[in-house]
């Protein structure tokens, strides 16, 4: 659950921040502000009313010019522009006031509303290359306040980890801050370059339980549930969704009014109407419920639309001919009600359950939060016994009375909770029912030499030589290290525990593959970039409406490649290298032997619709038989 956040950025505007580091073409200030702009743009996009932002400026000169910009209200685009205008170095007088005083003043800012529930964070942006520091004794007094109110302080030092020449002052200052970070647990030191690489922030969705009940084994389903539990095993559990494909940012439709430089939201309004046929009323009645068929022909001339706002109910088409109104009574009546719970039907070796049967989104099953530890032990022992037997349980899950009765695989797992600690949980996933089966018939991929029937078969099966080369190809592109431990019984990722900052150390191929969605990352990247750079323009509208924006944005590389689809910051070089620098000799060999090449469709092949009736096609030898998969146009074939 996202709590309210109160964030202060303290930016060092000393003249030294205006210098460019040897290998960079932007100033230290610009480099340090990448994170600030990103954070603020993100905040604007989140559009949350409760968050608070303050900008503190360390603007030294002959005397300290500490300035703070804060309003106790939502951060808006207007303020964003105001911030941007302030984030400039205005003096070139050598400074003699150190940063410490400003840090204290910034922390004081938190004091006024300290009783309110906020997640507080101070970010300091500096290259610490100015006035040399002596000691930080005074600031240590704040450590008490920070730990009491859980205020985090993060110091983003430009070129902290750089190996290149640093001034004596900078080296000395870095050491002083580093010492502070050792003694003060809420104080974190970060290297700006690292911070800038891992800009995107994981959205943590507060877990919401959707089921609270029991795992049961051997209960008497026909008897009253209360009575039968003695001779059965029950464990109190809760279910939480484990996975949900996220749509990071959803936009709306807006209409531009270029004359007035305004934008307005466009909404979709749906009108409900029935058709009343003009003229002959009998025609309509002729074939019973024919107007219930979905022939949405545009025969507007023969009927008029009568609006029926609010006067309609959901209907169900049992078959093309049988249609029924599903009113609330019928809806309730048609639900098969069953006692909620997770009932074990039996067990099966994990390898005997085909993954093709998994038809739903997985959930976590955990012990009931407030249950006695005996319940925890029962839960854990159940998980352990199944793990020992390399098995899973087939269970019947009823979330609540009247909800769908489903069969599921209940799979035991170990979760890494961070700090080398583990817990048992179960994963529950819906299994296919009979009606879900949609089996078709497909060509075999392996030739069955015993069969003589293949005389007419035109499929080209690969030779043994080709298969051998394919083996080499596959081995050359293997992502696994042979000596790696097996981890499939473990869940280990940086998001499974709500505390995303938990460091899970073993960075491996699994953590690389569990990256952020590249499409969402790309979209957000552009969006934030547009917001940040718009501050240069007089008005946001003009900036967005100007065609220059496109050419500005499109100057960068934009396409996906194997090297950019996974998170860089957490990808150990050897994995990515292997993927992006393939040894292509094996591939080339196989490629030549298989004689594959990319062919373009010709116009003729591309034609989608059947041009003539089946009969005409028969005589027209030039017309290719349409591939049936593509579902031909019904109107045409039936002419």
């Amino acid at each position, binding site marked *: 659950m996202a709590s309210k956040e109160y964030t202060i950025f303290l930016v060092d505007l000393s003249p030294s921040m205006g210098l460019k580091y040897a290998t960079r073409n932007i100033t230290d200030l610009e480099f340090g502000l990448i994170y600030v702009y990103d954070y603020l743009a993100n905040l604007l996009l989140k559009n949350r009313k409760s968050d608070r932002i303050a900008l503190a400026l360390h603007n030294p000169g002959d005397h300290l010019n500490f300035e703070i910009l804060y309003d106790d209200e939502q*951060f*808006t*685009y207007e303020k964003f522009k105001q911030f941007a205008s302030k984030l400039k170095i205005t003096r070139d007088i050598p400074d003699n006031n150190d940063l410490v005083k400003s840090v204290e003043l910034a922390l004081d800012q938190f004091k006024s509303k300290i009783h309110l529930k906020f997640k507080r964070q101070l970010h300091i942006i500096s290259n610490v290359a100015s006035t040399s520091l002596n000691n930080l004794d005074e600031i240590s007094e704040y450590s008490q306040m920070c730990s009491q109110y859980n205020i985090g302080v993060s110091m983003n030092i430009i070129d902290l980890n750089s190996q290149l020449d640093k001034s004596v002052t900078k080296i000395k200052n870095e050491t002083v801050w580093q010492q502070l970070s050792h003694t003060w647990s809420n104080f974190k030191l970060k290297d700006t370059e690292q911070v800038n690489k891992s800009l995107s922030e994981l959205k943590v969705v507060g877990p919401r339980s959707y089921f609270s009940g029991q795992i049961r084994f051997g209960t008497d389903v026909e008897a009253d549930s209360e009575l039968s539990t003695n001779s059965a095993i029950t464990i109190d559990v809760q279910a939480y969704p484990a996975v949900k494909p996220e749509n990071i940012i959803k936009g709306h439709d807006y209409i531009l009014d270029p004359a007035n430089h305004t934008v307005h939201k466009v*909404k979709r309004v749906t009108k409900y109407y029935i058709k009343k046929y003009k003229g002959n009323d009998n025609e309509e009645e002729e074939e019973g419920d024919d107007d219930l068929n979905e022939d949405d022909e545009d025969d507007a001339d023969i009927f008029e639309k009568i609006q029926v706002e609010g006067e309609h109910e959901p*209907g169900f088409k049992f078959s093309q001919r049988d249609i029924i109104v599903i009113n609330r009574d019928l809806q309730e009546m048609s639900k098969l009600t069953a006692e909620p719970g997770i009932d074990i039907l039996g067990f099966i070796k994990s390898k005997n359950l085909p993954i093709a049967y998994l038809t739903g989104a997985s959930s976590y099953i955990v012990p009931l939060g407030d249950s006695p530890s005996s319940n925890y032990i029962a839960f854990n022992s159940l998980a*352990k016994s199944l793990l020992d037997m390399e098995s899973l349980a087939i269970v019947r899950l009823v979330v609540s009375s009247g909800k769908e009765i489903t069969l599921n695989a209940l799979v035991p797992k170990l979760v890494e909770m961070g700090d080398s600690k583990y817990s048992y949980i179960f994963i529950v996933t819906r299994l296919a029912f009979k009606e879900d089966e949609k*089996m078709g018939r*497909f060509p075999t991929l392996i030739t069955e030499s015993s069969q003589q029937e293949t005389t007419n078969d035109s499929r080209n099966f690969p030779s043994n030589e080709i298969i051998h080369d394919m083996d080499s190809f596959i081995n050359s592109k293997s992502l696994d290290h042979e000596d790696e431990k097996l981890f499939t019984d473990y869940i280990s990722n940086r998001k*499974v525990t709500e505390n995303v900052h938990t460091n899970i150390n073993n960075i491996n191929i*699994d953590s690389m593959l569990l990256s952020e969605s590249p499409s969402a990352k790309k979209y957000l990247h552009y969006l934030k970039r547009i917001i940040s750079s718009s501050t240069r323009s007089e008005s946001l509208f003009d900036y967005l409406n100007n065609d220059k924006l496109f050419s500005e944005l499109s100057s960068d590389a934009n396409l996906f490649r194997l090297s950019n689809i996974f998170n860089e910051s957490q990808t150990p070089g050897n994995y990515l290298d292997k993927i992006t620098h393939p040894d292509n000799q094996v591939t080339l060999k196989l490629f030549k032997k298989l004689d594959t090449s990319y062919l373009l469709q010709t116009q003729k092949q591309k034609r989608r619709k059947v041009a003539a009736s089946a009969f005409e096609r028969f005589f027209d030898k030039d017309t290719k038989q349409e591939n049936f998969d593509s579902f031909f146009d019904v109107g045409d074939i039936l002419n």
Partner: protein
Amino acid sequence: MSYNNSQYGAESDNEDDNNGYKQYEIKDGFIFLIEVSSDLLKPLPELDNKSQLFTILEAINDLMSELVMTMRSSGVGIYFYNCDTSEVKNSVLRPMKNSTNGFVKLFKLNSLNLQNMKLLNDLVNDDIQSVRSISHYFDYLNNHDTENLPIIFNRLLDEIRAKKEFNRYKLLWITNNPQPYTKTQTKESLWRTINDYYNYNHYINPIFLNPTNSTQPFDTSLYKDIFINTNYLSQTRVKQEDQPFNNVNENENDDDDDDDRFGGSFKGYNKDSSVFKTIVLNNQIRESIFRIKEVRRIQFACNLILSDGPEVGGNFGCSVKGYTLYNKEQYRAQLRLHNKGESLKKVFTESSLVNTANGEIIDIEKLSNHASQEEIANYKKKSASEKKAQNNIFKGHEISGGDVVFLKKNVEELMTNYTFDHNIVDEFGFGIHDADEDEDENGSNENNVTKQVKITASPYLKLVGFRNIDKLDITYNSKPPIFVTADLNDGLRSSSSKGGYKNSFTTFSALYQSCTKLKKFAVLFGCIRKGAKPTLYAFYPTRIEYSTRNQQNEQDFPQGFLLIRLPWIEDVRSLPDIMYHFKGNQFETDETSNGVTSDELVFNLKKLFSQFFYDTYSPSDYPSPSLNYFYKIIKSELLQISLSDEDKKLIKNDVSVLKLSELRGYLMNDPNRVQLVEKINALLSELSHEDEAKRKIQNDEDTTSSTKKRKTAQGQSAVAPPVDEDGILQAWKNDEFGKFTVPQLKSFQQKYRDKIKSATKKQDLIDNIKQFLDSREV
């Protein structure tokens, strides 16, 4: 510069209509043509003293009730010939008009409907319940015309042609007569008729039942003559010669199990077709009838690119197609109905865009009055998003303060461009490629042109690498896997891509064989539909560990790969707080898990559970209880039949409850097992006594700082018990609503949702409930 990716967000909004798939519904017309003979009507011991005819009709009856759930748009017609109805009173069979004697129908080909379903169901059930045997209605017409087939097939074709609502027709011709005709003239006449079926793309599948009294196997040669001497064979040959490229796979010949008999258009048989070799035994009748519904449901078609890097780029790959294997079948309210007045009326919808600033409707279909005819015609062809752009409507995001970041169409396309760059140029030479530029067809209409593949626009699948099969983690399953096989047309006929890879089948087959042999699966990245968001997939071969049905009587999965969606980190949900904070439930791997588990308990659980193992799970054993019950109730409502309470009982409608009850029976049958359960429960109760003791001590210590934390941790995850009416009334009297949680209040509101308005804020919810209670007081 244009980006070949205008189909942005086709996943999220469907207003763009170029989505090639799902556009047409498959509407199958299934026609059963059954030859009546004295053998067909004879009760047989191996069929529980029922006749072959009964078995056929029972199978069709079951097929229809399944089709109504899974393929609602299909239709069924049942016809018989050589059937004598002259002696039967009130026959359910009706003779065909203008036709020969003995040609009758139970019901003509029509969309699935209750009347027909009931007719057949009554027929079958009356027989089962010995009310009236099926043989009552059927009699073999002894003196039928032996040369009547051409007339029957012609008449049936007329009947089929009159029904235009289907787009595929499949005729199942069931016979146990090895002598369908005697004269050459008849045969020649039949050739012509069968040819007509072919020309209309109507598919005929003969099913030969073994004659009951004959010791000789069914001789199908006369049937072979009818089918083979029609034009299909020569037609097939012409087609193959006509191919300008090496793509003879186009005609998937109907010669073995893996054919496309029902999935594709009717292409005829050859002399080796297995259809002439298969004589259906009595216990296979049902299965062979059910196979008619086997349909390949395509999900996507795209290219799978296997190579990357400077030397090969994306030149190595194969074209693939994805099909549904399993999907979640559920009931949805599909339409709105207007129920006032004399009859039910379908409610249509019409949506329009409205400018919220002034309430004006924006008609994006209309061009200004000055537009020329040509302009109007061109405009009509544009996609919805292009039309919107022309009307100054763009996607935008509201940011705090009320400003809107709107994205002009080209900017948005840039942001949602999912084209893949195969890195064919040197490391530093890449920039933006125009997606169209490389795929331009420069006068290449005559032959297929080989192209260097530098980049690929969506849809595509791109190989990342291979992994050992034991590394597959299905913890975060989100959707049913899609079955993927080679595109036998090398991607050259698919509408979704501009080209494909030569020898796709060979490459795909080699990939499959090597993966199964080496026990590897592939990791792929890509978008399987144009404009869909790119996803990571596991590409797992079938028929190896974790992907084999392991079922003796059922066919295994087809050979190919399962495309399994892997999550992005955003998709992964966190565990509840309490799991993280409750350190007492965590253990270190180096230790045994002592303290959080009990060895004795684990030992006994294993001892007990090991007696309850399945070898396999087969979906076909488990019809969905909720879905079937829904259909049962709706059916009874439509037919105005009242169901008895017995009929509505859970145990009658839920096969899983039956299994649970069996499990219970098996458990209670053996004293050892009962004892084991008792022992486990005794262990657990011992543990909870210890627990209570511990808790007491802890409670005494636990007073100050940690209580608050615990409370919040629990408050989030523990669910408060639902409140009953009394509790609510009590609270109402004392005005103590504040003590309830929002879910508690919500659950009460839900009970009376007609009368109490829902609300998002707790206070609003309380006010609404109060208002309701106050009104009731009066």
